[in-house]
């Protein structure tokens, strides 16, 4: 599936990952006669489309938030970007200490507000929490490689998500403009029909 470039190529894709593209209307009158819709039905159709877009937007925003916001354990999983970065930092620190032979004293949270001290000896391996009640032991290098890989994947997912959101917002904008244009066209038509003897035309709609 081709990805849309930032300079609004939304008109070139008919849909993107299940999101239908909003067709740009060159001329409202032609559109209405071709689809044999009257203004109200067309307006209703486009407004429903707009609602659908908004629903998808909410979903994507929630997914994006999931990837970017930091959750402390036990809610954290290795899928989130800040979590992975923190893990990488810890493993990096342990690796840096490997040669020195001195133990690392660390205070960690046992429960809310309660901390305990741990003495981390010089070690070659770390355990990584993979989620689903699974924890695996890795050597420091393997752990770094795995975490870096996960970070790459998470960042790639985020990029795709951001592109999806941009595409979606373009479609929302196109739909909003279309609704406005159909509405204006409708108002214009009504005015034309109201060719009253008096020159007063209704100024408010």
């Amino acid at each position: 599936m081709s990805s849309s470039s930032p300079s609004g190529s939304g008109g070139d894709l008919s849909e993107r990952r299940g999101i239908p593209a909003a067709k740009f209307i060159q001329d409202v009158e032609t559109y209405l006669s071709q689809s044999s819709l009257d203004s109200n039905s067309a307006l209703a159709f486009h407004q429903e489309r707009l609602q659908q877009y908004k629903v998808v937007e909410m979903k994507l925003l929630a997914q994006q938030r999931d990837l970017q916001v930091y959750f402390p354990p036990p809610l954290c999983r290795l899928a989130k970007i800040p979590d992975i970065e923190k893990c990488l930092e810890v493993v990096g620190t342990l690796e840096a200490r490997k040669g020195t032979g001195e133990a690392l004293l660390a205070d960690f949270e046992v429960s809310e507000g309660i901390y305990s001290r741990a003495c981390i000896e010089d070690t070659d391996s770390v355990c990584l929490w993979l989620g689903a009640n699974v924890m695996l032991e890795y050597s420091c290098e393997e752990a770094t490689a795995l975490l870096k890989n996960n970070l790459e994947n998470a960042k790639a997912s985020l990029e795709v998500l951001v592109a999806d959101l941009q595409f979606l917002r373009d479609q929302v904008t196109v739909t909003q403009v279309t609704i406005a244009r159909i509405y204006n066209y409708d108002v214009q038509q009504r005015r034309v029909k109201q060719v009253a003897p008096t020159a007063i035309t209704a100024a408010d709609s």
Partner: protein
Amino acid sequence: MQQGKSSSSGSEMQVTWEDQQNINTFSRLNNRFHELEDDIKFAKEKCDNLEDAGNELILSDEEMVRFQIGEVFAHMPREEVETKIEEMKEATFKSLEKLQQEKESIVSQMAELKKVLYAKFKDSINLEED
């Protein structure tokens, strides 16, 4: 996220595909602008926090300082902590600068687009923040 983009009734303007693309671009830039403002605020806070941490460190005279790595507080000698804080300050400052540059570029792009769109649509379009 919505910026005012409504057309007033009674307009007879034709909207071309190019206009639509301009409006779309403006919308994207506006969204990005708001995201950047949030990011810049966050980066500034981080800078301030690191500054405070550095100052606290200078004031305190403990040899072993607890430095937060990930979720745990590791006991580290003072010089190491000082170095780390300096590094983090540098990195945060650089990213803050980059964000501000991007924000300025976006503001000028948006001003350009506003000119173009207002020229075509005049009163029929509203591109201001509500």
